[in-house]
């Protein structure tokens, strides 16, 4: 077990303590408490209960259920009362079904995990760490075919789309990717201001489209297999970079735990490692953020190996410290 990391604020406070090391050791030892606290909690059951009191109730206001006539017991025979009860139960059932129907489905991959999901049309999605995908049940079509198969993505995902008559549309914070039947990777991190699309097979159309600003819609580009294209948010608005050759195996290495960086700037590389490994980096001011890295691991590298390689590439050292690693210039 390696040393646990102290929060930066606490480390500052310990500076003035004569026995800082002994106190820090207690903090480290207390990791056992964080471990054994993970007792079983039934979140599913609790969510059902909370949803009934929150989301379900809110939707009821919108879809006012038919008024229930108060029973006039004196005039109702036994069968009529039974029929009334059945009717009430049916109405409540329909309301509950409607409430359930109106809730979009969210697939979330937390830090340090990837998640595989199958969409209503049979299309398969892999979600990379720190990503979220939202879509309507049956893509919003109560019966028959939906107008389009729309999903919303925050983060990175790989899509293997089933061929279909209606377009499959991935909406990100600044772009839309429209496809028919194909396999492609979308990496859309608002912090990096870029939606990056890499196509494995089939065909996709990429449109610059920031949801909140209709004037920002930019011309579409069509990608061929093996190509990549980006929508970038700049101070001047959205720009769509023309398609270029890309190595699809590298773009999708994350699906098997691997990592691939293609001349990516240092902050973007560190951000991805933070998401994948659940750690934090603090960048020393002397380290240039202009430095780029190109690296490829087909399978998940150990953190030590990864940081060792990046240290050599960038000429930096990773110093374990408060809250994570400090990145400092190598001597």
């Amino acid at each position, binding site marked *: 077990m390696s040393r646990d990391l102290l929060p930066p604020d606490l480390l500052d*406070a310990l500076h003035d303590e004569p026995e800082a090391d002994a*106190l820090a050791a207690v903090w480290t030892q*207390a990791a056992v408490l964080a*471990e054994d606290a993970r007792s079983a909690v039934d979140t599913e059951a609790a969510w059902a209960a909370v949803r009934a009191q929150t989301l379900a109730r809110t939707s009821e206001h919108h879809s006012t259920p038919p008024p229930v006539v108060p029973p006039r017991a004196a005039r109702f025979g036994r069968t009529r009362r039974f029929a009334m009860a059945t009717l009430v139960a049916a109405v409540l059932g329909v309301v509950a079904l409607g409430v359930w129907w109106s809730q979009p489905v969210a697939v979330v991959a937390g830090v340090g995990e990837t998640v595989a999901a199958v969409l209503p049309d049979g299309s398969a999605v892999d979600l990379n760490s720190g990503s979220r995908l939202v879509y309507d049940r049956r893509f919003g079509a109560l019966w028959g075919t939906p107008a389009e198969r729309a999903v919303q993505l925050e983060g990175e995902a790989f899509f293997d789309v089933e061929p279909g008559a209606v377009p499959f549309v991935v909406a990100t914070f600044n772009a839309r990717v429209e496809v028919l039947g194909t396999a492609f990777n979308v990496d859309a991190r608002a912090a990096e201001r870029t939606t990056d699309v890499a196509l494995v097979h089939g065909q996709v159309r990429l449109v610059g489209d920031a949801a909140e600003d209709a004037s920002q819609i930019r011309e579409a580009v069509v990608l061929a297999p093996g190509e990549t294209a980006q929508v970038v948010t700049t101070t001047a608005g959205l720009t769509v970079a023309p398609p270029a050759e890309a190595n699809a195996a590298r773009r999708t290495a994350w699906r098997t735990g691997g990592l691939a960086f293609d001349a990516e700037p240092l902050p973007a590389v560190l951000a991805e490692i933070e998401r994948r490994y659940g750690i934090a980096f603090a960048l020393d001011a002397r380290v240039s953020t202009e430095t780029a890295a190109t690296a490829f691991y087909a399978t998940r590298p150990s953190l030590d190996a990864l940081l060792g390689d990046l240290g050599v590439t960038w000429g930096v050292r990773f110093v374990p410290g408060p809250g994570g690693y400090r990145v400092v210039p190598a001597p």
Partner: protein
Amino acid sequence: MLLTTLQPAPDPGRMARWAASLRRGDGAAFEALFRALHPPLVRFAAGFVQSGAEAEDLVQEAFVRLWERRADIDPTLSVRAWLYRTVRNRALNQIRDRRRRADLLDAQPPRPTTTAAPDIALEARALADRLRTLVAALPERQREAFVLTRVEGLAHTEVAEVMGIAASTVNVHLVRALKALRAGLADR
């Protein structure tokens, strides 16, 4: 292993996005927030109240209240801290009410029970038990500051919000807690 011993990195960006969506009444964001924070909040509540069912109820009430007040969410403050604070305050109210009743009956106030594992020789288990006993014996403020930062992984600013104190005061409680724990561990 390094990865498993680290706290799950709190992702302030994700929390802030959920909070923003929640303000607009986004049910999916509410669900995501619930799923992420329900287990740690129940654990946290269980540190105050007697039964797991009570802890569950406190947490569920807090989420229902959050949903009802979603329009008033302050985007500059942490939703996570708000939830911890709500759970904490309600737990403390419950304890106070119960104590008052107990005083009326001239009974002993309920004490948190720490069960010692009977047949386990493992050092880590023994250390965990010992630490748990020592943490339970800490003065309330110290215990809270310690549990929120060390076990729940909250940032200092969030702990300050939860406890209604300055961020610098969080450190004062933490350092005292660490000293007490160290003395307790050495005293053996």
